[in-house]
């Protein structure tokens, strides 16, 4: 599937289609016996090929669910997701996903964790290790390649995760409060690192966070480096809310 899909995707990319487009996407989680619990209400959202879009909302309002739909880890109850114009079926092969929790393999060293992303795509081990080392250097971990995840700090593990995702050079970056568990200072450093790396090729980014400041900070910096700047947020999430009302609100509001 992947080759042909990739071709189609490339064609769509050149045609200027949105990197990700949610059309009427809603997700219900089945609750024992009763009707589905609406985690995400009807959502229409579009992320351009070089856009850095932040989705802001409090915990439990369906942000991560939306992200999982974009990744193809979760099938929407209604609607569909278009990836570079093509309907998404199965996993989104164009996307790299940076999770909120630690997602690197604890049984592999930092370098192996980054290299494995290439190895599974068929790159020879020696070359993969070399490129992994280069990426570790870019995220500021060149001296930590031999460490296991438990020997790294939370921020360092995030850096490994970032390198692991970016080394595959995905066209779309999905980020689920990736810096949420970190302290404020580290979060800022990681944000700057992300923007520096993003400035290189300006991938499409869908960035989910509960932190409005972080969202604004990142998209401002996006502006600074010349990217398109639109911070999406679901307004209804800011009111005293129920989950249904929160997710039922309009999906996007443009910020100049």
């Amino acid at each position, binding site marked *: 599937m992947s080759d042909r899909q990739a071709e189609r995707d490339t064609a769509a990319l050149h045609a200027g289609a949105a990197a990700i487009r949610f059309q009427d996407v809603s997700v219900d989680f089945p609750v024992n016996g009763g009707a589905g619990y609406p985690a995400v209400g009807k959502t229409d959202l579009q992320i351009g090929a070089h856009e850095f879009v932040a989705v802001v909302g409090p915990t439990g309002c369906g942000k991560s669910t939306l992200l999982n739909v974009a*990744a193809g880890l979760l099938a929407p109850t209604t609607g569909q997701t278009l990836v570079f114009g093509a309907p998404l079926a199965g996993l989104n092969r164009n996307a790299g996903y940076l999770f909120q*929790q630690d*997602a690197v393999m604890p049984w592999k060293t930092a370098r192996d964790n980054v290299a*494995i992303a290439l190895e599974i795509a068929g790159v020879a081990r020696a070359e993969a290790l070399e490129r992994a080392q280069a990426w570790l250097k870019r995220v500021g971990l060149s001296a930590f390649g031999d460490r296991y995840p438990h020997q790294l700090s939370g921020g360092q593990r995030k850096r490994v995760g970032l390198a692991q995702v970016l080394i595959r050079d995905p066209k779309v970056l999905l980020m689920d409060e990736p810096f949420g568990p970190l302290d404020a200072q580290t979060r800022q450093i990681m944000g700057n690192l992300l923007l520096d790396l993003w400035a290189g090729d300006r991938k499409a980014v869908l960035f989910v966070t509960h932190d409005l400041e972080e969202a604004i900070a990142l998209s401002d910096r996006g502006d600074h480096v010349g990217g398109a700047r639109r911070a999406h947020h679901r307004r209804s999430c800011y009111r005293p809310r129920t989950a249904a009302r929160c997710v039922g609100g309009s999906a996007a509001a443009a910020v100049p």
Partner: protein
Amino acid sequence: MSRVLLLGLQALVAVVAIGIWHIGSSVPIGGVYLLPKFFFSTPMDVAQRIGKLFADGTGKIVNCPEPIQITNLLSIADPCFGKTVWQHLTFTLTEGVLAFVIGAAAGIVLGFWLARRPFLSAVFDPYIKMLNALPRVVLAPIFMLWLGLGIWSKVALGVTLVFFIVFFNVYQGVKEVSPTVLANARMLAMNERQLFAHVYWPSAMSWMFSSLHTSVGFAIIGAVVGEYLGSAAGLGYMIQQAEGTFDTTGVFAGMIILAMFVLVIDWCVTLVENRLLVWRPPAAGGRE
């Protein structure tokens, strides 16, 4: 606490325990031996027996009247004939290793298989629980009937012990893979085979190795109990023979040799574990 002090205190425990044993068995207190020689032997006798066993290599764990020509005809079962202590050790070790390898292999294969097939797992669940609840010693007679008095009946007993430990750990290890690590691996475009090699396998192995001490211990228990119940060689047999002739010294000598043997094996397991689980955070009080 310094290492020297710790070692000193550890040695002190042994000295006190042996001291009590020695006094109880060799020094009459008010005309009475608190630990009569017949039932408890003495530390000196036991030490001498162990020394002799390893030194002269004839492996006579019991005191034999010499010569005993007639029983030589039944030499397989003759405690006074043939095997050295090293041969007994080798016998037990071979059984233990075979039991561990076979039991672990079966446990890994079935653990993976059932963990990935919830339906089959649900079907077999009551039977697995039933077999696991069964005290394995009661299987020993049937194994002897099926497999004879040789090595394989002991291996079979050890396998039934090792299998369930490894099986449950591998099953759990596959089931309890962190969903985030799994989702991440899938997003990195791993196929089923790669998921197995890089995610499920290491996770299951970490669970299995965390129970390695227990499962190796059980392999040895299976071997020794099997030998004790009916055999012609091995440490369990050695102890059983000594017991059969009221040779308390022989029983204690056998027990101490067995304890040393298990300590050495446990130490080897720790070495293997440290080598293979180098990625694992220190158990308690680890950082973050």
